Structures are given as C-alpha cells and as structure tokens.
C-alpha cells in the first residue's frame, strides 16, 4: 500500500518535470537554443544532467543495499574484533569510489572551462553593435552611430539580424541587474559604473523573451525584454524606420494627443524625438507604437493597456517610477491614439 503511494507520487513528479521540457519553440528556455552560444550551454547542461542522474541512481542503489543488509546483521551478535581482510576490502572500495568522483568532477570542470572559452571565441570585424542599460525596471537599448542624429534609442526590444555576430555592450543606470535571454546566451550581470561586452549570434528567426536575472527591487519580476531576430533586410528596414523622428500628427485627434504629451507630465521623463519632449529618465517613446509590449514586457501594446498604464501604472506595477496621471478621458484617448500612431 505504502509502496504504491510512493510510486504514484514519483510518477506525478516525473511527469511534472517532463512537461517542463516540451512546449512551444519560442518558449523562454535554454533547452531550445537558437544560436551557437546557447547550443554549447545546452550541451554542457545535458552533460552535467546525465552525470547527475547516474550518480543519483547509483547512490540510491547502494543506500538501499546498505539498508537491507543492516536488517540481517541486527540478528547477529556484535563483532568486537574487526576482520582485517574485510576492512581491507572496504578501504579499497572507498578509494575506488573517491577516484571515480574526482575523475567525474574534473570531467565536468574540463567541459565547463571549454564551454566558457568558446563563449569568448566569437569575433567579427563587422558586427552589429548594440548598447543595453538596465534601469529599475526596464531596459534601455541603443544602436550607436558615428552620426549622432542617426543614433537610435528604444526600450525593452532588441532587434538583431539572423546569422550575424552581435556585440552587446552592457551597463546599469542604478543597481545591479542581469541580462538573460536563455534561448540565446547565458546571464551577464550589469554592474553600476562598469561596462562589459557580450558576443552572441541568433541563427533562427523568431521572437525570444529574456528577463532580468538578478533581484533588483520591487518590480524585478516585471522586467522582461524581447529579442526579435529577423532577416538582415527586415532588420535594416526596421533600423532605418527607428532613425526617423516621430511622424507629424495627421489629424485633429492626434494633434491634440501631441499637445497633451507636450504640455503635461510626460515631458518630465520621456523623449519623443521631433517634439519638445526630451527627458531621458523613462523609456524613449519615439516609436512606441511599433513595440510588442509596454512596461517592460508586462502588458501587450494596445490602446486598452496603454490607457490603463498611463492613468494608473501603480496599480499594474506597484513601485514603478512612473506616477499616476489623472486626466480627462478626451485627453487620455487622444494621447493613446497619438502614442499608437508613433510607429
């Protein structure tokens, strides 16, 4: 009866673990690598996993064996004088087990050293250069350009061409964050006052989610980003579009929306290139209408969530740096329409 209960729980746990392995192709997991870096990380992961499972099973076999033997011995009188030949046999067994353990640990060490060496091997004379800065609680993304007017700043969304090495320069604007897109690369801590560089490449088109992997305050959990990998032509078209300033409003509603943005609280923190809004505290909103999500992957980018976010961000992401912005519904709808027109 008891054994069958344990069996049932064991089966349940095994199924639960297996169910985490499957799933969609674009799921945020290092078990679906889409680039050379995460491919090597995945093979290291399986290497350690197989060894760990083997060790686990072997230890349990010996433990069960020892437990069974103990029961038999309890009926014998205690042996006061140890048997020297038996002691010798035990010592040899322990030495062999220790030797195997050391060899296995060195194998794991060797594999991870080789893997981490490979992580630094990607080089290119002509990479795509991107800068990423962690903020509480969003990501600032820049595509630097020698011509400053062509410099692109966006937020929470990194577009990269497929099959081209990318060098990501990282930094933090406040506390320690960690940049982690599991399908693409390992984690990289962002230390305030220090910058570091990370090379990666994505070989498969798609949208891959990543997130902050170092606890950074109240809304750490709502600090996600997307890496959008697309063909080089599509990427160039996207970059050219992002270089443009915000389009002029084309009708009266959008004109009113721009007025609300320029005359209200928005301008104290946000930039919309081509308007009077030029602050750099919050995300750059020049092409906010083209993004997949708002509030760092918290909400889908549509009129409803934009309106809710602007009116009361503290209800959605308590503690976020953006204050509530009460305004008349006419103003709010015009502002939302204007922001959505910024493609």
């Amino acid at each position, binding site marked *: 009866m008891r054994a069958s209960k344990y069996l049932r729980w064991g089966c349940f746990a095994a199924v639960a673990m297996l169910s985490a392995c499957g799933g969609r192709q674009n799921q945020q997991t290092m078990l679906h690598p889409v680039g050379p870096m995460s491919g090597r990380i995945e093979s290291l992961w399986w290497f350690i996993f197989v060894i760990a499972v083997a060790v686990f099973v072997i230890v349990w076999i010996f433990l069960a064996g020892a437990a069974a033997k103990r029961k038999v011995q309890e009926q014998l009188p205690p042996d006061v004088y140890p048997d020297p030949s038996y002691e010798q046999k035990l010592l040899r067994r322990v030495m062999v087990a220790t030797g195997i353990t050391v060899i296995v640990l060195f194998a794991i060490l060797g594999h991870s050293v080789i893997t981490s060496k490979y992580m630094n091997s990607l080089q290119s004379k002509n990479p795509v250069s991107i800068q990423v800065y962690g903020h509480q609680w969003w990501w600032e993304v820049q595509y630097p350009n020698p011509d400053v007017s062509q410099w692109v700043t966006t937020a929470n969304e990194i577009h990269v061409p497929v099959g081209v090495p990318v060098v990501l320069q990282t930094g933090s604007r406040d506390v320690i964050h960690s940049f982690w897109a599991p399908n693409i690369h390992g984690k990289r801590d962002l230390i305030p006052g220090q910058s570091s560089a990370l090379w990666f490449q994505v070989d498969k088109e798609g949208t891959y989610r990543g997130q902050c992997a170092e606890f950074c305050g109240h809304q750490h959990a709502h600090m996600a980003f997307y890496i959008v990998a697309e063909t080089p032509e599509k990427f160039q078209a996207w970059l050219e579009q992002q270089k443009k300033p915000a389009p002029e409003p084309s009708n009266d509603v959008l004109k009113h929306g721009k007025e609300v943005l320029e005359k209200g609280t928005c301008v104290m923190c946000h930039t919309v290139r081509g308007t009077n809004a030029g602050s750099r505290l919050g995300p750059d909103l020049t092409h906010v209408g083209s993004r997949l999500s708002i509030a760092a992957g918290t909400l889908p980018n549509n009129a409803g969530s934009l309106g809710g976010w602007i009116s009361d961000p503290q209800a959605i992401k308590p503690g976020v740096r953006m204050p509530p912005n*009460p305004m008349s519904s006419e103003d709010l709808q015009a502002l939302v329409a204007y922001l959505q027109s910024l493609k």
Partner: protein
Amino acid sequence: MRVMAMIAAMALLLFAACERERRDFRTPTSAASPGDTGVEQSPLHPGGGPPLKPGESESEANGGAGPYEYNAYAVAEGQKLYMAFNCVGCHFHGGGGIGSPLMDANWIYGSQPQNIHDTIVEGRPNGMPSFRGRIPDYQVWQIVAYVRSMSGQLPPTVRPGRSDNMNIKKPEQVIPSEHPQQR
C-alpha cells in the same frame, strides 16, 4: 521576569521604526476635473474621508504640514526627483549658483512646506520656472520634504544618510595615479 519585560520593551522599540520607511505607491491624487465647482450637495463620501477639493493640496488636507516630513522613503524619493528634474542645474547640490542656495538659513519666499510647494508650482521672479501641471502633486511634496532636509529642518531620523543614486565617479582613493605630460 525582568528579562521578559526587557525583551518585550525591545520588541516594542522595533515597531517605532515602522512608519519611517513606509512606502505608499498608490498615492491619492486629486480626481477633480477642471470644471468642478467644489460644491458638495451631500455630506456622504464613498471610501472614507472627504475627497480633495479642487485646488486643495494634500498638505492643506493634512492640516498645513507637508505630508512627507516624517517619512524617510518619501524624502529619498524627493532627493532622486531633485536630481532627475534638474533642480541641480540651478541650485546645485544645495549650494546654489544660478539659483539661490537651499542649504542656508535665508528663505526669500518662506521656508514652510506650503511656501516651497508654491515656489515650485507657481515659479518665482528672476528665473525660477513654474512646474504647474508638469509634476504630480505628491512628487512636488516629496521634493519639498527633501529641500527642507537640506537645511536640516526635518527630524534627523528621516534625513537621507546618503544618495540613492550611483556615484558618478570612483572615489579618489582608488583612482590610479596619472603621469601628466610635460610640454
């Protein structure tokens, strides 16, 4: 018995620090629309106390003292906003320059919370811009609390011990020595 009493007293002392760091993320903001006449036909108010009247600030509703004078978190927020909204551009870190100093005892337009609030919202002649409609009222009050802390007008328990911001440069202690070139 005496030991137990002392432990109980110590535990009570811990609670005294609770208010200091209280964080209100959902600060009440005035929901009154500009066309509101402020006339109330009923003494009943949904959700607790009476709402703010049009034009009435939280401090007036709080009886004249700034609402954040006893909250260290609000003062630290005020400090962040002081940098973020570029108060430092004119007032520097309290020493003054283009704008008047804020860490001395001279107050041209008054040192009370309401005076400083009005200075920020309405602006003052000779260069202080008006931030009306640009900064939410509760953030203005956080800045007010921080500005008052600069000249030591808040209780020492809530004044910031250090800046929440990252240091912009390394301490001189750890900067490697330079070898200036002779020309």
